[in-house]
């Protein structure tokens, strides 16, 4: 697999698949499709009790974009890009930390009860 596609693209100013390996976006599309089916499959049955916590938990996971944001704060990409990157980190972290914590708060209340009848 061409590990340096991105760097190569930078240096040659064009994305070339000349090495004969799959470009990232094709691998990415495979992953995208499989992850989508996984997501559809694991959520298909959920009791109404958990609709709210599940939504807020899934919401926190969508803050994964924080990982992308962390790549964006180098000083030599220009101040503007750096500020945008910083904002991206802050906002994604609000989403992640707040989302997981508030979900835990909700679920803790459920947990304090004896687990009995469904829903």
């Amino acid at each position, binding site marked *: 697999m061409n590990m340096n596609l991105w760097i190569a693209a930078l240096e040659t100013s064009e994305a070339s698949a000349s090495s004969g390996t799959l470009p990232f976006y094709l691998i990415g599309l495979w992953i*995208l499709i499989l992850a989508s089916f996984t997501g559809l499959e694991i959520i298909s049955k959920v009791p109404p009790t958990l609709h709210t916590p599940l939504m807020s938990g899934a*919401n926190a*996971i*969508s*803050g994964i974009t924080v990982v*992308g944001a962390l790549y964006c704060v180098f000083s030599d990409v220009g101040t503007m890009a750096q500020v945008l990157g910083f904002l*991206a980190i802050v906002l994604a972290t609000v989403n992640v930390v707040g989302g997981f914590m508030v979900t835990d708060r909700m679920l803790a209340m459920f947990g304090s009860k004896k687990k009995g009848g469904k829903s």
Partner: protein
Amino acid sequence: MITPTIAAMDTTLIEQLVYMASAFFFVTGLKKLTKVKTARAGNRMASIAMLVAVLMTVYLVAFKGQFHGDSVEAIKASIPWMVGGLVVGGLIGIFLAKKVEMTEMPELVAFFNGMGGASSLFVALATVVAFGSGAVSIGSEQTLSAFKGGDISLSIGLSILIGSVTLTGSLVAYAKLSGKMWKNRFGPVGTPGLNILLAVAAIGLVVFGGFLATGAMSTTAFLILTAVALFLGVGLVVPIGGADMPVVISLLNSYSGIAAAMTGFILQNNLLIVAGMLVGAAGLILTQIMCKAMNRSLSNVLFAKFGEDDGEKGDTEYKGVTSTSAEELAPLLEAASKVIIVPGYGLAVAQAQHKCRELGDLLEATGIDVSYGIHPVAGRMPGHMNVLLAEADVAYEKLFDLDQINGEFKNAEIVIVIGANDVCNPEAYDNPASPIAGMPVLDVWDAQTVIVIKRSLSAGYAGIKNPLFERDNCLMFFGDAKQALEDMVTEFKDL
């Protein structure tokens, strides 16, 4: 030789394995979140997956610096920004999560969701800006697709588009849910015509910015795209009624996942694609589940069939309504052997869940069988009522689904409907022309006596009359849910 967009695939085996473990825990965590017993562990698992991913990334960027040529200064300079961003965002998140009231949960989720969308938007914009100003920048005669490849160009455009729509859409949903905004129209904003125009313009700009425009023009196109998409987000959500916001947030949640996956394509990071699409797909399923619970099709929600005017729907005139008081109700309750409580939106708004539990406990103490019938959309979002009652320490086994409780109403002497309306409207069965025809409702009228605690006879979200209130076995107790329950508790104790 500088770019903020770095291939995660450039990392070594161990680093890949760590990201993989993170993806594994996201999937397992989400799976566990769908079962009551394991939900809390699932949420923790997902949060650990996130922590691992973040720490790995910080380590890769700051300490290995392998993504960044050899500019040590730039690496060093980036550390405070990364750590600062995480600390600031973390503190804000902790503050909001700690201080929120359980009744405010829907708007908080909407707000967080908007932040996630904004983050994807900013990552894409940072990339665009960096391409325009970094050491290796786009040539003035060059299109972005020639510079970076068509896949990156398209991903950037889509990330901006979806991220922007998620941001403003969620903020409008937040405003509506927190009661800061009720209007469904602001001039032309939100009209189908304008929305279509904006959507077409947005798609055009994605193509133009990524594949046709050259040099600085490409950057400009993406900035215009941002503005257009931000407007589109507002326009899409403004016409939708407050009661449908849960469906909308759920859908926007799905969008924010997809936006994150798109940034995964920009940054060539598998983990972003996996986690993003998990949420994207899960959000779609949740949207579908919620639509079903409200007996609405998604298109019906999105293109607002009812509640599309500024409230004030249908004059609901009632005849022969029997109103009652706490003093009259107390002996009635005392004589009962089985009481079913049906809590609704009004209870959530009045924060009356604790009073509700108090009354329930009181009745039980005198040997009355008390159970709770929960409509799937009771409260301010699906599942919200369960959270509120759990907060008030109502035991789990007393809460029953629509299907479980509907056969029980005929055995109950008394049903107490607290701040609910549409979810117990017989029109759903009796009137095929009704907007709620076919919606699953609670058959409260089967009980000997139905006590409805409500502020007034005003219509619910569906904007229609509820003939239940005119029935002979229905007693209306007008008032704020909390106050009314308090009065009932006092009167009952005084017996």
